[in-house]
Every structure is written in C-alpha cells, then in structure tokens.
C-alpha cells in the first residue's frame, strides 16, 4: 500500500509539473496574442512575388467535394502562366476520377493524375504528384477546402524570404453552425490558428505546417528527403524535418480558407486518433534531431518539443486523475499536505485545464465571435471526449510498437457536405451555416446520366 501511495504521489507530481508547463504556455501565448499591436503579416507584399507554383490536391473518394475545390482553384487570380493544379485521383472508388478528368479537359491549368495502386495515404499521393510538379512552390489543399480567389498569392508571398521553407494559412470551418460538435471544433480551430499559430510566429517560434492551406518550397522538400509516406501526419513530420535543417515556417493569418470539420463524434474520434498517433510517432522519430539542431534557438527547441508532445498530455492528465483517486481513498488524504504542494495541485486541476479554454476566448474576442463563445463551458465535453479518444489511440500505438505491428494506418475523414449539387452554397437554406452568409452564392451542379438517357 505504501508503495502504491508513493507511486501515486510521484505520478501526480509528474502530471502537475507537465500540465502546469503546458497551462503556462497556453496562458502566455493567449495573453501575448491579445496584446500584439502588429502581428507579423504578409498582406503588404501579397501579389508582388509570384513564383512558379504547383497546387497539389490529393483526393481519395471525394466526389462530394472535389468539384467545389477545383472550381474555386480555377477561379483564382494567380497568373495562369505560373500555376498548375495537379488533381490527384488517389485510388478512388467513386466518381472523383471522372470529376477530375472533366475539369482537366475543360481547364488546361488542371492536370489529372490517376493513381490506381501503390501505398495508401495522402503522403504517397503527394510524393507521386511532387515528382510531376514543375513549380518552385508546392501548395496543398485537401479536397474539402474552399480557397478564396487570392489564396495562392497570399500563400506564395512569404516565399520571397529565401529562408522560408514552408507556409501555413488559416483554417476556418464553414460548417461550424451545423452541429454542436462542429461549433466546438470551430472554436478550437480559431484558438489554434488565431492565437496559437500567430503568437508562435510573432515570438519567432515555429508555426506548424498543417498539410493543407499551406505550401512548401520544392527545393526545401527535396533537401529534407521528400514526403514521409510512412507517417500518418506527413505535415507535422515535414515541419520538424524542415526546421531541424534550418528552414523557417511562415504563418499567414489572413490567408483564410474554409474547411469542413467533423459533424459527428465518431468521425472526430477517428480524426483525432489519427492525429495523436501520427504526432506522437513524429515525436519519437524527430525529438533528437530537433533538440540537437544547430539551427534552432533554445526557445524554439523547447516549443517544438511542446508541440510534438502535445497529445501525450491526455494520458498524463488521466494518470494525474487516477493518482488523485488513489490518494483520495488512502489514509494520505486526511494528512495535511504542505500548502505550496496543495496549491500546485489545485492550480493544475482547475487552472491548468482552464488555460486552453482561455485561448478559445481570446480567439473569439479577436474574431469578434460573440455568440459562439458562449459554448466554451460545453467544450468541456469535447475536452473529455478527445482525452478518451487520444488515450485509446496512444494505447493502441504503443501496444503496436511493443508487438511490432505494421504501424499506424491511414483513415479517410468522412465528408458531411450533403451533396455536390450546390445546396451548401445557397443562402438562406435554413441550416444556419456560418459560411453561407459570407460566401458568394454559387453552385456547381453535376448531373450524372447514363448513355441510354442521353
């Protein structure tokens, strides 16, 4: 019993220490972001640097969303002589390939790549497309995104700095009004980008390249060995390989691009499980090259390790809770602990967890999002649900490592757009989705018919 109590105390202290550091980091970033008078921005130089650009769009069974993205890309205002759009039909079993071929036939700027076999996963599709790309800069979009007309100009602007190896834009959910979960994820995304990424960029730390609404310099990609097709989070993997080799990652907060967030918890669970597994896998592979990099300052290294280890906070949190439980039932519970230790414990339990919510509020304040911010207390359920999903994913990951399994597998995120006949673009459709009052009402309508009908 004494050993158990001792172990519980050790676990609790460890959890307090780790989570207090994360909490402090969140508070610092949020307060700093709120007070930045002039965030680093590339708006002033947008359009003045137009490198030869290849836009890579990997798509696996994306018939619901493919046309919307391709249409938005061809409507972009980037110089047509300097851009190519590589639409990759990545072993799709639905009509994605046909949609891509149709667009390629109508718009010479689009090149269709049909991939029928080979390794699964987004990184493998990107690897294939990168070999065929001719651009100095490779921009990436997932199929469920809606880039604005100037998006390519905004994202290529930071590459005028020869040190910049990758750039990241801001991701904004367009369906955050559809379900409670989507609204909560909308808040989370705002905190992650408006506060976290911008504050880190301003502080000279590393904003993360997210693998979509972003780009990478082709020469930098080659210099670090290309895409890691084994990684579930090829974006995280690339970010840290780039910075370890001395490249910088730029963040453009005004390069806002719409995405679709999961509307159902089961989908979210799989998504966050994939992120947690891929991220933690990157931690194991890259922590030594990041911490030993001669190109990174000490604060950059520390922050990079914070980012790489962020999903480990979930099991550490649960460990802390379990340790509290053991101490609650033990005779130690009635012994008087030192006041400072107890203060640290309470600080971790109440305010350490609160720090991420403070970030949500800061983002909502900056975005003028007065209504959705009222959901912050409800986000606690999302927090607990995510914690459980991450713990499960990491447990499977570590068990797999011990037993020598094939490693993590890729899961495609389910799309929630109801159809591709334009319903989502029409104003006043009653769904209350945030995008539709802002987005021009357009519709890309597809009619599929058999030969006999024609």
């Amino acid at each position, binding site marked *: 019993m004494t050993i158990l109590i001792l172990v519980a105390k050790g676990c609790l202290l460890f959890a307090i220490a780790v989570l207090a550091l994360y909490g402090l980091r969140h508070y610092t970033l949020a307060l700093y972001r709120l007070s930045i008078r002039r965030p680093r921005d590339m708006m002033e130089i947008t359009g003045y640097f137009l490198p030869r650009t290849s836009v890579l769009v990997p798509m696996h069974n994306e018939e619901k969303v493919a046309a919307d993205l391709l249409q938005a890309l061809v409507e972009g205002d980037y110089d047509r002589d300097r851009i190519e759009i590589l639409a990759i039909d990545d072993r799709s079993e639905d009509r994605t390939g046909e949609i891509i071929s149709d667009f390629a036939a109508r718009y010479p700027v689009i090149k269709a790549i049909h991939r029928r076999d080979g390794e699964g996963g987004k990184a493998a599709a990107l690897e294939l497309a990168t070999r065929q790309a001719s651009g100095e800069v490779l921009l990436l979009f997932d199929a469920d995104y809606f880039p604005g*007309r100037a998006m390519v100009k905004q994202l290529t602007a930071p590459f005028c700095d020869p040190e910049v190896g990758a750039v990241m834009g801001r991701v904004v959910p367009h369906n955050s009004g559809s379900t409670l979960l989507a609204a909560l994820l909308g808040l989370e995304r705002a905190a992650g980008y408006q506060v976290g990424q911008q504050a880190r960029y301003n502080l000279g730390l590393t904003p993360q390249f997210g693998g979509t609404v972003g780009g990478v310099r082709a020469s930098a990609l080659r210099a670090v060995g290309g895409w890691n097709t084994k990684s579930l989070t090829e974006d995280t993997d690339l970010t840290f390989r780039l910075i370890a080799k001395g490249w910088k990652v730029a963040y453009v907060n005004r390069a806002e691009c719409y995405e679709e967030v999961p509307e159902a918890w089961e989908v979210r669970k799989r998504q966050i499980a994939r992120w947690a597994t891929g991220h933690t896998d990157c931690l194991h592979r890259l922590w030594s090259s990041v911490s030993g990099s001669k190109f990174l300052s000490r604060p950059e290294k520390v922050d990079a390790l914070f980012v790489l280890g962020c999903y480990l906070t979930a099991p550490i949190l649960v460990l802390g809770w379990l340790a509290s439980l053991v101490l609650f039932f033990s005779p130690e519970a009635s012994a008087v602990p030192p006041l400072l230790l*107890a203060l640290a414990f309470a600080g971790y339990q109440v305010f350490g967890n609160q720090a991420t919510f403070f970030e949500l509020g800061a983002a909502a304040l900056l975005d003028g999002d007065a209504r959705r911010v009222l959901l912050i207390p409800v986000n606690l359920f999302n927090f607990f649900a995510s914690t459980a999903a991450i713990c499960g994913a990491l447990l499977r990951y570590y068990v797999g490592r011990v037993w020598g399994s094939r490693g993590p597998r890729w899961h495609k995120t389910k799309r929630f757009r109801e159809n591709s006949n334009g319903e989502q673009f029409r104003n006043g459709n009653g769904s209350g989705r945030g995008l539709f009052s802002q987005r021009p009402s357009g519709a890309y309508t597809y009619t599929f018919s058999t030969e006999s009908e024609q």
Partner: protein
Amino acid sequence: MTVSLKVRMPAFLATPHSHMRREFIYPHRSVRSFRVTVAKLLSAVFTAAVLCGSIAAYNAEFFTWHDRLCVTLLEWTGVPVTGEQTIELFEGLSTAVVPAVPVARFESNPLRFVLLAVAGLLALWAIQHRIALSRGFVLFLAALLLITACVVAIHPSSQFGAVEFGQIWLRGEVLVWLLLPVFSAAMFTLVQPIWLIGVTLTVLVQVFGIFWSAVRMAFCLAVMHYSGILFVPILWFALGVLADMIYLMVFYSMAVHWNASRYWRRKAL
C-alpha cells in the same frame, strides 16, 4: 454503363472574375489585437493582491459564512445536522467549522448499496448512450463509481464521515479561493475594455466561488446522508474543482461575449 458528366453553373459564375466573388474571403471581422494597458495590468495585479490578501487574512470569517450557508441549505432540504465540528486545514490558515451529518454505511444495508450502485451505473450508461459527446466523461464517472463500489465492498473501513469529507472539500476549495483572484484578474481585468468592469467581474467570481462551494458541499453531504460514500468520488470529481473550472468558464465566456459584442458595436461593424 458509361457515366457521363455534365456541368451546369449559374450564369454569374460563368465568368471567372464575377463581381460576386471577392478577392479575400473573411468569415469574421478579425482584429489585430486588444490593448493591454499598464493601467489594466496594474488594476489586475492590485485586485488579485487585495482579494488573495482578504482570503488569507479573513479566512476564519469566510469559513464561518460558508458553514452557515451549508447548514441552512441542509436544514431546508430536511437533512439532519447533528452538530458542527472544528477541523484543521493548512498550517497558516485558521481552523474551519463543518456540519456533522449522519452518513449511511455499507454494513448497515448492503443490498441498498448494491441497488444504488447498479442504478447509478445504469443512469450513466443511459446518458452516454444518448449523448455521444459526453461519452468519455460519463464512462470515466462510471468507472469511478464501479471502483468505489468495489473498494467499499472489499474494505468497508475505507468509508468516512461527513466531517472528514468536509475537511477534504474545504482543503480543495480554500486553495481555489486563494488562486482564483490571480487567474480571474488575468482573464477578466486584462481583456475588458473598461478596467472597472474587469475588477467587478473578478470580485463577483470570487464571491460566487464561495457561495457556490457551500451549495455544492451541502448537496454532497445530502447525498452522503442517503447513500454513504458510494457517489462521493463521482461528486468530488464532477462537483469539486471541476465545477470551479466550469463556473469560471461560464463567467469568462459571458465576459468575452459581452466584450466582443460591445467592442464590435462600438466599431459600428
């Protein structure tokens, strides 16, 4: 069967540079920053220091108010209060008084305990079944209930009374009261456009924290009176420091809501 594809687009989108399309799409009216002035910073530090100092200096009075409120609530709900007992909290703080309430024990009626545990588990299962988002949290509570039931059944000596619970409860809460001003000053005073509103909110949260602690403690004691310590770990987890976090978040979200609305109204956007 060959599937062919026809593309129809609305006329206004047929031209690539239609007036309906904008160069930049902003989903919201994002601003660069909020001003954190020296005056706000000083008022936050001053408010936090005064509140922390008040709790440290007058903790005996706060404990007394807390106990009176708790006893009143228990009496209102018909739970017998057999007396009050003085307890030690931390060195440097005064002693506190907590109400003594008779607590049901496992040995006196094991069947009742089993039925209550099963009912509790079924209720939690039903909640997680209906609300997918609550699944992680509710399953954690269910595991907690199961562990408690096993511990109580195997080691009945692990059961404790209302006074011990009061001691555990107040130890947690007094720490929250001491820490709360620091965090709420940072969360409210710094981000409010008018410092006085920030200070008022900070004080309000502190007062609410003490009041709400008494209400939650009275509820927990009432549950203990009828079901022993079976549900106490769940309540301690869900209504303890977590509940402190929730009210802080509620206040914070309302403050940000008000602040954001007011700020944007002022900018007439």
